[in-house]
């Protein structure tokens, strides 16, 4: 009788310990998943902040920007980058994609024509190939040097610089 009671007590305690153990495991898993989500969110916030700043930084980069103008893109340089695919790598550009659209003066044909091509209006400067991308854009001057009537000057059009933020790709 005494031995049965003791066994029952030990069993009860063992069950209690297992229950407490599983409870803490569950709490731990919940906390880790919450923490993982928070880290992912803060990573994406930082990436977003970086992309927003990149709009300005990109126009200052010697690979893209004009020499002396603020928020200006050298059309010849982006033409060269569009031709010379693969400049830099996924790490060199802190963003997922760089696209430049000519938006004014508007083209008769409103379709997007990929440069290099005659009368093109769209430059795909860099594309990491990532599908899950959020784009941010700003208006910029799109300039190139020309020589007409014995004068050399910068001919500028209005362009839109669009950069994509890398979002975490879901495993397929």
């Amino acid at each position, binding site marked *: 009788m*005494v*031995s049965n*009671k*003791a066994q029952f*007590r*030990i069993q009860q*305690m063992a069950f209690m*310990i297992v229950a*407490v153990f599983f409870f803490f495991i569950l709490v*731990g898993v919940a906390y880790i998943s919450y*923490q993982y989500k928070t*880290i992912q969110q*803060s*990573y994406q916030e*930082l990436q977003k*902040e*970086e992309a927003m*700043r*990149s709009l*300005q*930084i990109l126009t*200052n*980069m*010697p*690979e893209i920007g004009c*020499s*002396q103008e*603020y928020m200006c893109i*050298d059309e*010849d*340089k982006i*033409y*060269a*980058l569009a*031709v*010379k695919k693969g*400049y*830099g*790598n996924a*790490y*060199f*550009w*802190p963003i997922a994609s760089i696209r430049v659209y000519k938006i004014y003066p508007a083209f008769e044909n409103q379709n997007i024509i990929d440069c290099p091509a005659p009368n093109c209006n769209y430059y795909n400067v860099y594309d990491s190939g990532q599908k899950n991308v959020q784009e941010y854009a700003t208006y910029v001057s799109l300039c*190139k*040097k*020309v*020589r007409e009537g014995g004068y*050399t000057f910068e001919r500028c059009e209005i362009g839109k610089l669009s950069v994509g933020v890398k979002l975490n790709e879901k495993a397929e």
Partner: protein
Amino acid sequence: MNMDLKHKSKKGDMNFEVIFAILIGGLILFFAIYGALNFGKTVQYETQTEIAKKIAVLTNPMQAGFSEGKTGKIMFNSEIRMFFSCLPDSEDFGENRISTAVPSNAKGEWELPGGEISIYNKYIFSGEMEEGKNFYIFSKAFEFPYKIADMIFLTTENYCFVDSPYKISKEITDLRIENIQLADEITNCSEDSIRVCFGGKCDIQVTGSGGQGDPFSQGYVEKKGKRVFYAGNLIYAAIFSDPDIYYCNVQRLLYRGSKIAEIYALKGDLMNARGCSTNLIPDMTAFSSVLKNTKPENIIAIVPVAEDLRTKAEREECGIW
């Protein structure tokens, strides 16, 4: 007699239960403490890694752009250690790496650094390890002869520039760099500062080998028994940076310069096609390969090539840059 036996048996049961409870309780307590310690370490690692990433983002506005330079300061509530390293890559842009460590409150020692954050398109010149609450940052463009990138200088110590040339004194005064003092004589420097002399004997010595007009436009910097060669704005990098980090970043800058020269060569073709002609295409192509093949220690040797390119570009009506 029977009563006695029963009592003994009951006593034995109690003992076993207590022993069992103590064992299991001790085990749970051990795992709880071990888990808490490990968890604390993970949180610490995460925080430190996040700080490193934030520093990488915070340095974004420090790109000089069209201005002569930019100044900034990163402040922390407590002391922090930043570790910097640089990985060159002869076939790629290379990278800078940052990691941080915070003090451990319990032991008064430093935690191990968190995860390293890689930066591929910035050039951070600093010591291998910088420690403090305030981190002073300023940036300058590196032009050779066209703009290649913005260099970021990060320091925590106070510096005293003794008898610096007018150009450098003016730049430092204009940028209002808090931790750099300008002095005519070494005796006017504050006690805790690192003395930087332009010509004399100091903690850091700068020796110019440029022309009479601007003797410090190129030369070398001697620091901790090591000599590093500089040209142009690299003088600041040579003063503030660890020699290994300096040469690694210079190599990265030269590689990027060579890639930009390739873009300029293509741009030249486009300009020629529309009548805004340039004769610099062969020069740009040649300069690209010169930059790619030059070792950072030999940077002074290619200064005349860059100067020649600058002169040619300035003569052109449709400037290529």
